């Protein structure tokens, strides 16, 4: 599933070589953290978060098929997870 996240994010940005996806597997939830070049973060989040939300929806759909739960966070400049828009 990490491959899925990497594929999508790298295809969306100007600097794919600077995209890093970290995967942390907990007991019940797997967390994906996305890092991108500062000038690319906007492209990963999109207007009103629509691209970020779409990435989440796709990764969750893929996870659901394998009976897994996932969270996707996009790290911004200051390295704090971007607050998640309401789902």
């Amino acid at each position, binding site marked *: 599933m990490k491959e899925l996240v990497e594929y*999508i994010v790298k295809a969306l940005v100007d600097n794919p070589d600077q995209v890093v996806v970290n995967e942390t597997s907990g007991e019940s939830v797997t967390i994906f953290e996305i890092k991108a070049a500062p000038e690319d973060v906007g492209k990963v989040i999109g207007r009103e978060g629509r691209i970020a939300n779409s990435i989440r929806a*796709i990764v969750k*759909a*893929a996870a659901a*098929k394998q009976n897994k739960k996932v969270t996707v966070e996009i790290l911004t400049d200051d390295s704090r997870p971007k607050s998640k828009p309401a789902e």
Partner: protein
Amino acid sequence: MKSVKMKGKNVEEATRHALEVLGGKEENAKVIVLNEGKSGMLGIGAEEAEVEVVLREGLADDAKRVLQDILDKMEFMAVADGNLEGERVELVIKGEDMGQIIGKDGATLKSLEILVSSILGQIYGERVRVGIDADGYKDKRKQALERLAKDVLDEVSKTGEEKVMPPMNAADRRIVHLFLQDKPNVTTYSKGEGRDRRLVVAPR
């Protein structure tokens, strides 16, 4: 993506030359008029027309490939197909796991549309419109929404009171609005913002 700039007596001629050079058809091309040209008086003050022609032949294939890559990496058993229809790429997904690919109220399908369109926008450097359907979902959705709209139409006609529809996305609201716009008894408008935006059906 191939493109060329070309001058000619007028826009048509410049476009025709550009398409010859690119070896493509007009329906696959986007023509940007850089200068409409002037005929002038007896050749004085005449200006040649100039166009930039961008061939988008590969667009449908690129869209298909991106969608297929995503479906494969999602480990869904599904195949993407599609064509360029005017300015818009229309893709269709066939295979297993259709329910999961469509998602609740088509939410997963919509997310795929947003991502494939954004990725192509990144590749082509301009906005690319992409529609994705799976298992006839869009037609079924349209029929269901029109049945709902018909029920609301009957209710509003009978009671003479306006009725607020449940929150719907822009595409769904549009279907209901188009269905009701030529009905003599009612009129529609939208209220609310973002995810809570709703269509209101009011007596005329």
